[in-house]
């Protein structure tokens, strides 16, 4: 039964039947896939995939960029290999260390089936059935369509395997107990891919998918409650304690606290180059996001993001605009 979610389209909440051996998630309407094909066909062309690459890999590379996988799964600070994980993510709950997502069969995800990969993104479950902490933004990725997930996996599997072992998270009591994630998910996690809102046009729906699912903007820009769940009432209204303890700005179109005095082209230009409307260049974590993710998007996709963002309800927030 599709259920409306605030500020967005609809999320398909049908529970996926999972047999002990687990199988791929349920069927999906053909029309959606066709629509995605159309959108991403354009996008992939604009992104200029490597010549001669497998279509799934080339398409997956674009998804990979839009989903911003690289910055978290690479320990740039300590010169770690791309996607080999190990980046420390300090949070109020302790420090998470991102895992290796290269195709190494032992330390990476090389032994994963497509179904394993889809289950991780859609349900926040590891192949051994254990729950992921929502530091991995599966509450956003759950809304991805299956083709995007498969192509993303194809791209990741085309990257060099790196045998870097994963590092255990260093969490404060009581957050180290993984089983507590089951009730957490019950309370805060809505599983299911995004269903387009038929009352809105294609550009808005594409923007919603990019912002809420692939781009997972809210994972940083939305405040979290004391249990680390994003506060949907204050969607994208800024986070006083973001990743690494830093303040993350309000990006709703609120004129005082958000980016209400920006034009749509101010935003698309910022997402492409990193320059703020006044010509200044913001530092901080968004620099990586622009250089590794939004800078690679097609102009059409950046316009869709701006369309969606400026259609959000303006919320006055703690984090003043950038």
């Amino acid at each position, binding site marked *: 039964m599709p259920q409306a979610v605030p500020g967005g389209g609809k999320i398909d909440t049908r529970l996926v039947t999972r047999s002990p051996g687990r199988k791929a998630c349920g069927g999906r309407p053909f029309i959606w896939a066709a629509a995605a094909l159309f959108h991403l066909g354009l996008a992939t062309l604009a992104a200029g995939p490597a010549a001669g690459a497998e279509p799934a890999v080339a398409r997956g590379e674009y998804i990979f960029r839009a989903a911003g996988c690289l910055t978290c799964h690479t320990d740039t600070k300590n010169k770690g290999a791309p996607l080999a994980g190990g980046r420390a993510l300090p949070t109020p709950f302790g420090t998470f260390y991102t895992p290796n997502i290269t195709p190494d069969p032992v330390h990476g995800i090389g032994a994963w089936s497509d179904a394993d990969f889809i289950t991780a993104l859609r349900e926040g479950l590891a192949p051994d059935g254990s729950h992921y902490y929502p530091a991995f933004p599966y509450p956003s990725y759950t809304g991805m369509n299956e083709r995007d997930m498969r192509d993303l996996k194809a791209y990741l599997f085309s990257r060099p395997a790196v045998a870097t072992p994963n590092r255990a998270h260093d969490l404060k009591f009581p957050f180290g107990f993984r089983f507590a994630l089951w009730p957490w998910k019950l309370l805060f996690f809505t599983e299911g891919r995004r269903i387009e809102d038929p009352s809105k046009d294609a550009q808005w729906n594409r923007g919603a998918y990019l912002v809420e699912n692939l781009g997972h903007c809210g994972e940083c820009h939305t405040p979290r409650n004391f249990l680390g769940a994003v506060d949907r009432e204050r969607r994208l209204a800024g986070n006083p304690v973001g990743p690494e303890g*830093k303040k993350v700005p309000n990006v709703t179109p609120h004129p005082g606290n958000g980016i209400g005095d920006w034009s749509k082209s101010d935003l698309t230009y910022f997402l492409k180059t990193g*320059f703020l409307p006044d010509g200044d260049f913001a530092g901080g974590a968004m620099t990586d996001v622009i250089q590794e993710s939004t800078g690679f998007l097609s102009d059409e996709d950046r316009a869709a993001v701006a369309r969606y963002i400026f259609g959000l309800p303006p919320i006055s927030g703690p984090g003043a605009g950038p």
Partner: protein
Amino acid sequence: MRNAIFILTLGLIFATAGQAFAAEEPQNVIKYRQAVMKAIGGHTGAIAGVVKGEVSFTGDVAAHARGIQEMSKLVSKLFPKGTDNKMQEKTRALPAIWEDRAKFDAAVKAFQAASANLVRVAEAGDPAAFGGGLQELGKACGGCHKPFRAEEK
């Protein structure tokens, strides 16, 4: 003998010049530094207006690119020791600049290269290449502003 006097005089001139620079008031250096940075920001802001299509002065972007390139040559000396945000007010320059000066200098070099490239693509007049050049410049700006500038409070 004449040579000796010449060298001595030269040495004296350099010594005084060095001293004069060292005697520069940190707050005045910071003020000047920020004025130069604002000049760069003024040019990037003006370029943005053209690229976004708000104004049609496409012929101006090369002049702005050259302005940025000129400023990029000044940056390195704007950061003498003792002008960080631990020792001085009204600045967001982090002590990391002096703790890892080699990295800072490399980042400044990258900025100079990116602005020189921006001049090239601007003079060539190809909007797509110019867009790419701007992205390169943005990367270079981030190369300093991310590791070496404190975030706004």
